[in-house]
């Protein structure tokens, strides 16, 4: 077995509402949606007309700037609506399920015996290509791109994250097929990173064709960006592709069966959930059947994803995001708190050691809510970000270079290596309540624009 890479910096946020390891087959949703907003820099062009019939794997829209990148329906039925948001941007492309699951068929066969072009084409046609993203920028990989390596992080250290060991246990063979396919896409290595905290876990440890490493440490040790920086750091001009484990399984199944399998597991977690558990469902499912009889009383926020990297969705009309294996429901923090800033804080979670909870109940789990806890200020405290970002990067200096739009400095300070999820903890701990991840994304956008012109 490969070595265990220890991550020292970071922070595990202990929260109530961890999903119990039970699979529940979710009641089938009536509608499913693909949300173009799940990908950065995507301009969708709708293919079928409203009320057209679609099958599982029928393309429903494509990327205006890379027309070969198609996005496919996860169920069979009709294209029922295209929901738009601000400035008529397409937010959701909704399919009404007919329950028949009639499916398109794709190329079947052992990827080891296929040419790269065939694999790429099969992934593009089946709508699985968008599951492959690239760093820097975390945009959809370019089909003709040549990544120097492909990274799969097979564990998640975010708060209340699903246990991928549990989730992938019975899919090892499909996973192997997926790795075989991915291996053909790069001349470099495929890196498979496993959780080093539980060395006894053997799931995925026998996967062939990938370099297996184990990472041990607090969040964000499970973030693929951190793992890339330790194993194969991104320099100017480098491109690394990343794929999430459930998508590796879907890719494997595509080649094994010749069909797009949209099934996936989603963990329902959080302090406002009656019974946190795992659901077998279908990609892009409406959340209502999952949340039925599961929500506790009180104001709450439903998040597709986790509390550090997730999209706020509506409990009535929201859909699970393409990349999200987790739904989190936490209390909304829209309350005033009398003298909150000078109370001892027995029930508050903070990395600052000025709260009673830090000293009296260090292992306490918290009902974290969405309160902002103060107001936004200029940068004052220093050294906070560095403690939760396990990379050789100066985060505050990088943020300042973004704020003044200094492209050269951003590049020099390592913006290519980062994604919002990697700096989410910086935003969490910031005393000045700086919108760190938004600033970073603005920087990445500016950088991408600059490089592509």
């Amino acid at each position, binding site marked *: 077995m490969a070595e265990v890479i220890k991550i020292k910096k970071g922070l595990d946020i202990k929260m109530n509402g961890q999903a119990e390891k039970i699979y529940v087959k979710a009641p089938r949703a009536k509608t499913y949606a693909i949300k173009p907003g799940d990908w950065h820099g995507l301009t969708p062009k709708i293919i079928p007309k409203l009320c057209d019939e679609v099958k599982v794997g029928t393309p429903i829209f494509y990327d205006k700037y890379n027309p070969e990148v198609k996005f496919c329906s996860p169920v069979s039925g009709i294209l029922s609506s295209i929901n738009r948001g601000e400035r008529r941007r397409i937010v959701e492309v909704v399919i009404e399920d007919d329950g028949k699951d009639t499916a398109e068929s794709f190329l079947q066969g052992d990827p080891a015996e296929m040419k790269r072009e065939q694999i790429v084409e099969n992934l593009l046609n089946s709508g699985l290509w968008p599951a492959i993203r690239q760093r820097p920028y975390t945009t959809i990989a370019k089909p003709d791109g040549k990544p120097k390596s492909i990274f799969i992080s097979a564990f998640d250290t975010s*708060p209340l994250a699903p246990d991928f060991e549990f989730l992938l246990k019975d899919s090892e063979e499909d996973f192997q097929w997926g790795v075989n396919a991915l291996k053909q896409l790069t001349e470099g290595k495929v890196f498979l990173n496993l959780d080093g905290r539980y060395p006894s876990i053997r799931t995925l440890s026998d996967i062939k064709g990938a370099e297996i490493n184990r990472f041990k440490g607090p969040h964000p040790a499970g973030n693929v960006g951190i793992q890339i920086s330790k194993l194969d750091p991104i*320099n100017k001009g480098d491109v690394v592709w990343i794929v999430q484990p459930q998508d590796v399984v879907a890719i494997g199944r595509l080649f094994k069966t010749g069909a797009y399998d949209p099934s996936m597991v989603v963990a329902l977690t959080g302090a406002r959930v009656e019974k946190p558990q795992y659901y077998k469902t279908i990609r892009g499912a409406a959340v209502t059947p999952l949340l039925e009889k599961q929500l506790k009383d009180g104001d709450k926020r439903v998040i597709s994803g986790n509390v550090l990297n997730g999209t706020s969705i509506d409990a009535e009309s929201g859909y699970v995001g393409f990349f999200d294996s987790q739904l989190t429901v936490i209390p909304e923090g829209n309350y*005033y708190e009398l003298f909150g800033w000078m109370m001892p804080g027995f029930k508050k979670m903070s990395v*600052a050691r*000025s709260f009673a909870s830090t000293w009296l109940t260090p292992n306490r789990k918290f009902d*974290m809510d969405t309160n902002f806890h*103060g*107001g936004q200020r200029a940068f*004052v405290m220093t050294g906070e970000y560095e403690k939760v970002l396990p990379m050789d990067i100066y985060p505050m200096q990088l943020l300042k270079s973004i704020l003044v739009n200094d492209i050269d400095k951003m590049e020099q300070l390592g913006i290519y290596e980062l994604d919002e999820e990697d700096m989410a903890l910086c935003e*969490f701990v910031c005393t000045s309540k700086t919108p760190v991840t938004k600033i970073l994304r603005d920087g990445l956008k500016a950088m991408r624009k600059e490089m592509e012109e």
Partner: protein
Amino acid sequence: MSSLRRFVDKIKPPFEKGGKLHIFLAGFEAIESFFFVPNQVTRGRVHIKDANDMKRSLIIVIIAMVPALLFGIWNTGFHHFQALGIEAAFWQMVWFGFLKILPIIIVSYVVGLGIEIAFAQMRNEEVAEGYFVSGMLIPLVMPADVPLWMVAVATVFAVVIGKEVFGGTGMNILNPALVARAFLFFAYPSHMSGDKVWIAGLADGTGIVDGYSGATILGQAASNTTSFLNGLGEAYTSWDMFLGTIPGSLGETSTLAILIGAAILILTGVASWKVIFSVFAGGAVMGLLLNLFAVNEFMALPFWEHLLLGGFAFGAVFMATDPVTATQTEKGKWIYGFLIGFLAILIRVLNPAYPEGVMMAILLMNVFAPLIDHYIVESNIKKRLKRAKVTAN
């Protein structure tokens, strides 16, 4: 919802946009957020926030200053009555000191916060809490007999020129409290230095014991003696220097009280222990060097006594650690702190113009902090470039 909250909600509307009292919004919000942490919720992809905020971090700094403040109150009374030759009870001394210091604190906060709120209103921002700390630091670095109008003038100068012209809290280059002190030191030297200013009532001169001297230990050391005497002509021990029963600025004398503050700051993680530690280390190294090459009595003063004297400990714990004006990289904090300590003792002993060097050393390093950071960040950049070249080959 509490009745207080209902009351605030009731009186709020005129302050909001379009209301009659809108120009006072910043002030209203400052007071409102003093009572209530706002009901604002997170937006964007990060949905939870650490419970800590700027107010809490800075209130910890004020709490850490309380021991020094309390000691300063007593010490002011103690020296006053000593100079008058009156046997006073403990509470008498405390009461005298309290009446002496309270007006200074009030002037400092009223003037400083007034300017902060005005600027925040002008910029349409929330009032930043930075002045919480500066407002307490300024009184603690003043001599007991400082005229109140001087405190006010110095505060105006410090807040406007030291901070607001750069853009407010978080943007300033120099520590505002030190700017206030430096301003008075150069503008009104007779009130900020010499042998008469450190003890309340001494400059006035009525009822003072004959031959009573109010010279600070550093004042005496500058005239090249190391047998330090108190006002009545009795010898000071190192213990006196540590406890702080010596004349000096209001909050700076007691190393013990300051160390209690340092413990609070370090345990809560509000101030950088690296800076505090390295200031002391730098001072000790310079002291040792001077001991080694001593050609006069001051240079031969044991290096550790330097750390107990003047504003050294106070500067190390409360001034050098100001995160805005210190270096912002962790490596830089070691260098920054060390040089402050090193230069402070150098200036103190070898420059006859200034009996105390801490203020100068910190202000100087405030100016150099961005340069230190620049080189450290540059080395990170070079490392990244080198890595890119290695993989490219």
